[in-house]
């Protein structure tokens, strides 16, 4: 009988808990706080399930394993929008588009008319772009909340007291696990949540730029998530004026109506990452560490959860395990 304590109720911990519970195991969840929220970096995620676009800068496993994500989330939390994603570039950055197309798979070149059909509000601004039909997005906070509600329905609660050393622990503390995982580092990200009812988008838009690449993810009701910077630092408390300026300038360039947007939230956190920016499962004694989701929390947590459960239930070693 599988019986585990999971420390950390961010996207990694909740997905692993869900996967174990689905397979009939018993789970206890521990976190600093009794409910999900801003203390976990997945709270600030974009929620793009975009394995093909991420392939531009990520290693092959991200593209392959990330393709499982949309189905997993659909099955466990629902709320997955399968409208694809759109990749655009402004005037003189157009060469970025051809490079992006060359180095990724699953992209179709679309012209201005097709862009206008996909996103009527952008049709007049762009005459070429890339469309990845098979990608999806979700609202990360809703998804986490749904996982937690479903776990609670199975009797799992989040305890804030430190766990007693049980037979098996799964450590999903993210960056806090640096005390044990010395090759884990933080990559700072800054994001904004905007309210802009004047713009309607149906899918995430990536705006390529040699200096300031951004993405905008529609959250519904005129709310958008605008992200995200990538800075090699663990600092998680504050946004700089420059980052704010760059993010907003890029949004304004995508559509001038974003100039009128209300800034609802400013989010800053640090993503936990290993040197190759791929997640790891490490077993040390009675503790299994599942960590390093980097900027691919919602994209790779389903695969991380499956592989962790495969190891627990069947002793199956996966490609994410790099030590005993």
């Amino acid at each position, binding site marked *: 009988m599988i019986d585990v304590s999971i420390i950390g109720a961010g996207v990694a911990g909740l997905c692993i808990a869900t996967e174990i519970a689905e397979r009939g195991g018993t789970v206890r969840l521990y976190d600093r706080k009794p409910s999900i929220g801003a203390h976990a970096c997945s709270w600030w995620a974009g929620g793009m399930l975009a394995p093909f676009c991420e392939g531009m*800068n*990520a*290693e092959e496993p991200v593209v392959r394993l990330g393709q499982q994500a949309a189905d997993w989330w659909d099955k466990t939390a629902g709320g997955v929008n399968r409208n694809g994603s759109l990749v655009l570039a402004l005037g003189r950055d157009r060469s970025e588009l051809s490079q992006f197309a*060359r*180095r990724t798979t699953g992209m179709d070149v679309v012209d201005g008319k097709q862009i206008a059909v996909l996103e009527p509000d952008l049709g007049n601004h762009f005459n070429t772009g890339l469309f990845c039909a098979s990608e999806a997005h979700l609202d990360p906070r809703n998804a986490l909340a749904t996982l937690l509600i479903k776990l609670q329905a199975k009797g799992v609660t989040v305890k804030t007291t430190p766990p007693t050393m049980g037979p098996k622990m799964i450590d999903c503390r993210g960056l806090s696990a640096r005390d044990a995982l010395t090759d*884990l*580092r*933080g990559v*700072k990200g800054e994001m904004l949540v905007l309210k802009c009812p004047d713009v309607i988008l149906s899918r995430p838009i990536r705006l390529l730029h*040699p*200096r300031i690449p951004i993405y905008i993810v529609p959250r519904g009701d005129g709310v958008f998530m605008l992200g995200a910077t990538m*800075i*090699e*630092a*663990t*600092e998680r408390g504050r946004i*700089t004026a420059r980052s704010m300026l760059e993010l907003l300038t890029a949004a304004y360039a995508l559509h001038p109506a974003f100039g009128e947007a209300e800034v609802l939230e400013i989010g800053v956190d640090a993503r936990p*990452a290993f*040197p*190759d*920016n791929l997640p790891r499962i490490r077993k040390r004694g009675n503790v299994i560490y599942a960590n390093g989701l980097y900027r691919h929390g919602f994209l790779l947590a389903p695969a991380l959860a499956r592989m962790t459960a495969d190891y627990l239930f069947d002793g199956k070693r996966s490609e994410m395990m790099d030590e005993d």
Partner: protein
Amino acid sequence: MKQFYGVTLKTPLMLGTAQYPSPAILADAFKTSCASVATVSLRRESGRDKSGQGFWSIIRNLDVHILPNTAGCYTVKEAVTTAHMAREIFDTKWIKLEVIGHTDTLQPNVFGLVEAAKILTQDGFEVFPYTTEDLVVADKLLDAGCQVLMPWGAPIGSGQGLNNLQGLRSLRAHFPDIPLVVDAGIGLPSHAAHAMELGYDAVLLNTAVAKAGNPVEMAHAMALAVEAGQAAAIADPMEPRDMAAPSTPVIGKAFLT
């Protein structure tokens, strides 16, 4: 090979550490490139509270000379502050001094550059100034105490190659004893080889490798290029001439028929 503030470099390639897909690829690219110097930019926000430690330790483990830079500084004050932070964090007197003057081209503000170079040299720094190919500015930088010059090939990250060959040649001719590095603008191995063929002492590049589809393979190509260019410069290349000169002897052949 000339010395850079008393240091002889094993290879004439200096490689930047920004924009790689991951630190693991960065480390592999360094190994393949045989680069002898790593430039690293220090953001003032992460310098102040040392929050970049995780990344910096990866740079330190590359086991090459570390040349911190003041990238993104627009004023003398910012550049000087950043240089001091860098000296403390990386424990080196070396500083690649950038004082940017123009947001779009990232062209150096040469007036601020000379001023900052003077201040930093007096503070005991060994300054590697990112400058243009302007001879007068070069002279002023040497007056300010710089013992290395780093003229641009083209704007940072543009990959355009060597935009002003004549200017770079002239700089080499005027300062035969000063270590000269082409810094910025390199997009292809042929650009790097060309810089070395002009008799430059090293090449500094970042984006060309970091943003290649396969950074490790491009790092290898750059290693071959600087080696070829350097060997060519040592070999004293032939002079180009207008008249064709057959490489097989014509004597004895009935060329007047």
